[in-house]
């Protein structure tokens, strides 16, 4: 009974004593917070920046000791700063800024990749769900998936006789395999428990497909789509070499023929950054659609 008593009396003077320094504390807290944020940003941004600076430095040294080869970063800036600074110019024909080239290529990848996503997921479900389809098709797919994009070019041209569909086919055929294979693995790995739930509920095949199979397979499908979108972007240079006209692949080929290596380096940076963005975009879509369950 005597225990709580003494704690009352010192409480007030204590709060009074503590009251004045409080504003200072929040100011210090704010400064702390800012410092913490700054540190976090620095740890995320500084290492890649330093690495980039170091690589550019090495490149500069290596390139200046071998004149006539790949231009150094400073030479590239001299040769191509118009191309770097203004990606949006349009002088008609194929004389456009890199933004327009990349956009055209993205449209082609968009069409080719959409087709391969639709066909890939359908075929993947088929060979994942049907043992005979799996036995028959899986070995064929495993062999075909190792054929490089450039090797499909002549076949594609022979099949379609026209540049446009041939280019789309090259993108399609390059990116479809990982989508098929990952979807099939996902379908074969639907947990037995989910299948049992569906059986107890007597879900119809269509209900099973949409309510169990597709959601359970989504993380696998998106792993396939992510690899696939990367490969379709890889195929773009090959397919645009035969297309001509506008497009970042043809741009590279064209600049090579004109011996403008500096412009090619700038275009490569665009290709790399766009590929990176595509990959992140598909990963993000996967996370949103599977509500965070996707295998990253």
């Amino acid at each position: 009974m005597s225990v709580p008593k003494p704690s009352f009396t010192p409480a007030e003077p204590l709060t009074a004593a503590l009251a004045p320094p409080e504003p200072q504390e929040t100011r210090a807290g704010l400064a702390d917070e800012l410092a913490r944020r700054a540190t976090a940003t620095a740890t995320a941004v500084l290492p890649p920046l330093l690495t980039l600076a170091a690589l550019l430095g090495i490149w500069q040294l290596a390139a200046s000791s071998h004149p006539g080869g790949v231009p150094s970063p400073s030479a590239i800036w001299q040769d191509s700063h118009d191309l770097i600074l203004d990606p949006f110019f349009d002088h008609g024909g194929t004389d456009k800024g890199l933004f327009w080239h990349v956009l055209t290529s993205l449209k082609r990848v968009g069409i080719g990749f959409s087709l391969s996503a639709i066909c890939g997921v359908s075929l993947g479900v088929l060979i994942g769900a049907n043992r005979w389809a799996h036995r028959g098709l899986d070995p064929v797919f495993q062999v075909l998936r190792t054929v490089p994009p450039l090797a499909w070019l002549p076949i594609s041209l022979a099949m379609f006789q026209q540049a446009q569909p041939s280019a789309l086919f090259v993108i399609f055929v390059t990116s479809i395999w990982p989508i098929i294979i990952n979807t099939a693995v996902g379908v074969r790995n639907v947990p037995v428990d989910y299948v049992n739930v569906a059986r107890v509920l007597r879900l119809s095949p269509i209900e099973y497909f949409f309510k169990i199979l597709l959601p359970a397979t989504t993380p696998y499908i998106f792993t396939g789509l992510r690899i696939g979108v990367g490969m379709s972007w890889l195929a773009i240079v090959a397919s645009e070499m035969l297309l001509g006209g506008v497009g970042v692949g043809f741009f590279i080929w064209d600049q090579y023929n004109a011996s403008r290596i500096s412009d090619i380096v700038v275009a490569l940076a665009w290709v790399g950054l766009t590929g990176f963005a595509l990959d992140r975009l598909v990963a993000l879509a996967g996370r949103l659609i599977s509500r965070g369950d996707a295998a990253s």
Partner: protein
Amino acid sequence: MPKAYLSIEGLGVTFSKGAQRSEVLRDINLQVERGEFVSLIGHSGCGKSTLLNVVAGLIPATTGGVILDGQEVDQPGPDRAVVFQNHSLLPWLSVRENVDLAVNKVFGSAKSAAERRDWTLHNLELVQMTHALNKRPAEISGGMKQRVGIARALAMQPKVLLLDEPFGALDALTRARLQDTVMQIQSTLKNTVLMITHDVDEATLLSDRIVMMTNGPRASIGQVLEVSLARPRDRLAVAENPAYIRGRAAVIEFLYARQAA
């Protein structure tokens, strides 16, 4: 001769894989009355899960068969709802959606949309899970997942409720709370329940009868024990009850002296 509500008759199950054949169950005969709570107990690998799966219709019987309410069991169905050991909730659906899936499938034509919504809520209320309606399985504890699994099974209004070691993966305190919930629900709804367990206390506390199985392969029913304790049962009160102590001792004697694994 009038048949029992659930009747397992001369049931045998043999799995064959290529030329290899293994007989898991042999000549199982068991009659379960409507509203009865029956536990299956036995050592691991004695085929009790196989037996439950045959009643569920998930595994076909090799010989004999199962008759529920005058109809032979030949495929799975919502009249034999299963609560799986590892809850098997669909991780991409919320708690409410998981139960909805069952309710919409079973009562899609019999109830209106509003009635179905209320029915889902009612069943989640029975297991005290209405506070987590929009949570997904990954966001709730193991005990809560099992509660939702039970609500999903109850929502199908099954003729017989099949519990496959429903509390096996839970800690002792959570398990006790869930056992109380199941007892309470069973006393109001008068479900017919077939439960697999390997826990002697659980079997004795919950069951009207305990079916003890011999060791596999070729497992069969070794002994059936009536637990003649009045309901409602209270876990503290029955612990001192001679009938409880006798029942528990008989099961332990069977499992560890006569069927020592």
